[in-house]
């Protein structure tokens, strides 16, 4: 049977955070879209396709950020048997998969005019595709068991094994020859992107992060409700 670390405290916290995170997401998305589409210049080489970057790069960051958070939660779930940590990973997975899909599709739409190809099997693209399959595999695995706790445990192990892919994605553009350009924002010597392009990029990144916070809190709520339903049905059947 599921015992909650403190679902009541979580519900209070979620109720306090949700209106702010949802409101800030909307505001930042509107401001970010304004900068991305209107108030930033076209690139001198790439023209207006550079505007794809303001979706593609934040989505790529989120795909790694969400997975890393899920893996940390998986470790907490396995070590301390913290049930909310298990539920967090389960709640976050579809959002992470969504960001990874956005990253892959927009990357393809950007590659077609700029590289002359929709897809290449190079290190960066392939490792991100593997990340996408890790998300899908985790989601399938968690739901493949009759006992939800066994599903969670199996899923958590998969998340921890799959974390090896995160540094591979990050450094793939340095370790191998790839069509994909190297990092231009997350660099030791500071970003090399010009300020008029860095502004929309960072605003969109914060907006995507707040979107993730909002949706994950709502999904966690839905997961807790599902667990309660399950518990009630089990106790009713056992009486």
């Amino acid at each position: 049977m599921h015992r909650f670390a403190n679902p009541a405290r979580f519900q209070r916290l979620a109720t306090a955070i949700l209106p702010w995170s949802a409101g800030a997401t909307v505001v930042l998305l509107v401001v970010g879209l304004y900068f991305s589409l209107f108030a930033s210049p076209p690139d001198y080489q790439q023209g207006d396709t550079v505007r794809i970057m303001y979706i593609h790069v934040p989505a790529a960051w989120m795909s790694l950020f969400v997975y890393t958070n899920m893996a940390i939660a998986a470790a907490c779930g396995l070590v301390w048997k913290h049930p909310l940590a298990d539920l967090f990973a389960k709640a976050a997975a579809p959002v992470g998969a969504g960001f990874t899909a956005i990253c892959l599709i927009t990357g393809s739409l950007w590659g077609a005019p700029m590289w002359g190809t929709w897809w290449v099997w190079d290190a960066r693209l392939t490792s991100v595709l593997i990340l996408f399959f890790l998300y899908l595999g985790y989601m399938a695995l968690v739901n493949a068991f009759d006992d939800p706790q066994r599903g969670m445990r199996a899923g958590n192990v998969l998340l921890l094994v799959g974390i090896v892919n995160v540094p591979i994605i990050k450094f793939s553009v340095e370790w191998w020859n790839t069509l994909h350009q190297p990092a231009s924002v997350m660099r030791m010597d500071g970003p090399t992107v010009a300020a008029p392009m860095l502004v929309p990029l960072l605003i969109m990144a914060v907006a995507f992060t707040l979107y993730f916070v909002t949706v994950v809190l709502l999904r966690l709520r839905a997961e807790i409700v599902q667990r309660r339903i399950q518990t009630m049905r089990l106790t009713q059947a056992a009486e």
Partner: protein
Amino acid sequence: MLFGTGEPFLPMSEFLAMGGYAAFVWPSYGVAALIMVGLLAATLKSLRSGEATLRALEGSRPARRRRDRAPASASASAVNAPAVSEVREG
């Protein structure tokens, strides 16, 4: 325009053309919007339906609570009684 992209007021058609890359830029924004709005909608839907199910289940529970406090009240436990005996016998 904040960063001076040239013309302060771009004609709508020119803006939509995205310098000739409209077929790549707009689908990118469209796909992102579709996935993010779709995820949010699916989340809200499952949350609402889950909460409705939970309310319905809790609605059938007062019978049990009353039985817990006053075991003698047989009529209140009648709702749950058949299922209970079936499970125990089985």
